[in-house]
């Protein structure tokens, strides 16, 4: 039994509850051993293209790989590695830190099918993977991946993809700022909002009234704001269904809109639309109640 620090036995031998890091170290070690095991299996694949990718990508930080058997004689060699994107540091104006930071939360997964020891030569399957929480700012499923022409290889594809992504992530981050500006521009018309998602500005709710009719408006702002306009619903504070749930309008997302307007113009137009529509909403609430 190998008792060095590179063996799981080392961590299991003198198990002690006094060391809270033991379990994590053990898991990381086993994971590392598994990655090494899979790497050896990929090295055993004789296919030329896979061997080329292995040799040119070997030095990439955070590269992982494995072989999966699909069926008799049919395997898939999988590679995965983080993409390194350069961003402006949002705090660089206020301190002496460097003006750019790197983000490596987005990874690329690549699948090369290998049949009978030979890969096809066609484009591999490509997939972007990102943490679930990023979806509020940027959805990797929306990204149109750069084309993979014949004779393309990973070491060339990676920087092309990184440039494309960098641009799209920059736009997504700019969109956060634009959404915040828009929500702040609502203030002169609707006063203090009740609650705003102050992380990514995807949602905002306000309380307003028309005479004695008090109602809420719930806004949802899309990731591609302002190209795609906000949607919203009205909610009454005075009309309830049989179970006490307040009545809600349909979803509005088809009102006049232009992404080129200033935030203040957008807010004005939405105010005008709300001012006009809210009476129709009040009437329809009244109709629903009188039908019961």
């Amino acid at each position, binding site marked *: 039994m190998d008792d060095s620090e590179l063996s799981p036995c080392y961590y299991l031998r003198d198990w002690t509850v006094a060391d809270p890091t033991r379990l994590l170290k053990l898991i990381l070690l086993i994971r590392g051993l598994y990655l090494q095991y899979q790497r050896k299996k990929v090295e055993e694949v004789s296919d030329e293209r896979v061997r080329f990718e292995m040799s040119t990508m070997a030095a990439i930080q955070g590269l992982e790989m494995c072989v999966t058997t699909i069926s008799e004689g049919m395997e898939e060699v999988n590679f995965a590695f983080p993409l390194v994107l350069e961003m402006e540091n949002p705090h660089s104006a206020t301190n002496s830190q460097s003006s750019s930071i790197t983000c490596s939360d987005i990874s690329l997964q690549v699948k090369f099918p290998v049949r009978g020891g030979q890969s096809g030569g066609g484009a591999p399957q490509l997939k972007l993977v990102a943490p679930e929480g990023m979806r509020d700012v940027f959805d990797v499923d929306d990204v149109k991946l750069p084309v993979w022409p014949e004779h393309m290889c990973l070491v060339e594809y990676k920087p092309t993809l990184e440039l494309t992504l960098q641009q799209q992530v920059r736009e997504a981050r700019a969109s956060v700022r634009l959404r915040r500006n828009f*929500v702040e521009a609502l*203030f002169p018309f609707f006063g*203090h909002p009740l609650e705003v998602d102050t992380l990514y500005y995807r949602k905002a709710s306000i309380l307003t009234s028309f005479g004695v009719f008090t109602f809420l408006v719930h806004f949802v702002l899309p990731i591609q704001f302002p190209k795609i306009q906000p949607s919203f619903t009205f909610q009454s504070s005075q009309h309830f269904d049989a179970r006490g749930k307040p009545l809600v309008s349909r979803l509005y997302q088809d009102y006049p809109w232009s992404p080129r307007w200033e935030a203040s113009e957008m807010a004005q137009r939405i105010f005008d639309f709300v001012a006009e529509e809210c009476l129709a909403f009040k009437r329809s609430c009244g109709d629903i109640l009188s039908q019961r």
Partner: protein
Amino acid sequence: MQGEGEAYFSRYGLRGMGHMAEDILFCVDADAEMNVEMKLGTQGKGLCRLDAIKQAIILFVHSKLMVNSQHRFAFATLRNSASWLKRGFSSDIDVIGQVVRGLASSGTYPRCDLSELFRMAAAEAHQSIALNRRLRMVLIYCRSSVPIEVAMQWPDKQRLFTFDALYLHDKPTHENCPQDVYDSLVDALERVSEFESYIFESSSGSARLLFRSMCILLSHPQQRCPQDEFEAPKDISKMLAAAPHNSTSGNLPVPRRETEDNSGVPRPH
């Protein structure tokens, strides 16, 4: 309207305001004064304070979940002291509806000590904080002659939760003291609340006004301004009447003004 808006616009900014999910503890008075009638409802049926409050709480919960489905709710009742009605925060609207509909008044309580309520809230607040949430307590009180006390010494530095209050009461007479009660509530809020607290009082018996106040209480504590600066809900009909050329819509009828009977207690500031 534009000019006035711009002055505030340059001051008002959302950057840096937190947005943690809330655990909201409703503490509802169980005193017999909950049975006092509100103003006649639109269907002509009598509505007592407790019925209106139940509806208002359900309005609040639905609205809060529409704003953000991560918020959760728990319930306590208040006699001489507070006790749990439904411990454990939940966002299950069916369960919450059952709990709220089960609220009832249970007697006349000549005293009210909030020490136990604060202790309960502080204990829950630690758990909320561990979950990256913040606790808020909303007290709904209706006794016109019983100021609240806090018998236990409450450490000044301990501000673990936000504390809001909704106070429904009778009009002041020689036999009651709603002003003293109101002042005692304000004192308690100021001693204990983590973020800006809001308090509403009314003797008007208007359910509509109650619902309106409940909606203002939806406001997220981490994003609040002082209550006397809170500018919502604005009245769209007044804004349009003041500057009709700013609107792109056609002619709107002049809104009928309803005078509110809100001859409640004056504010201390």
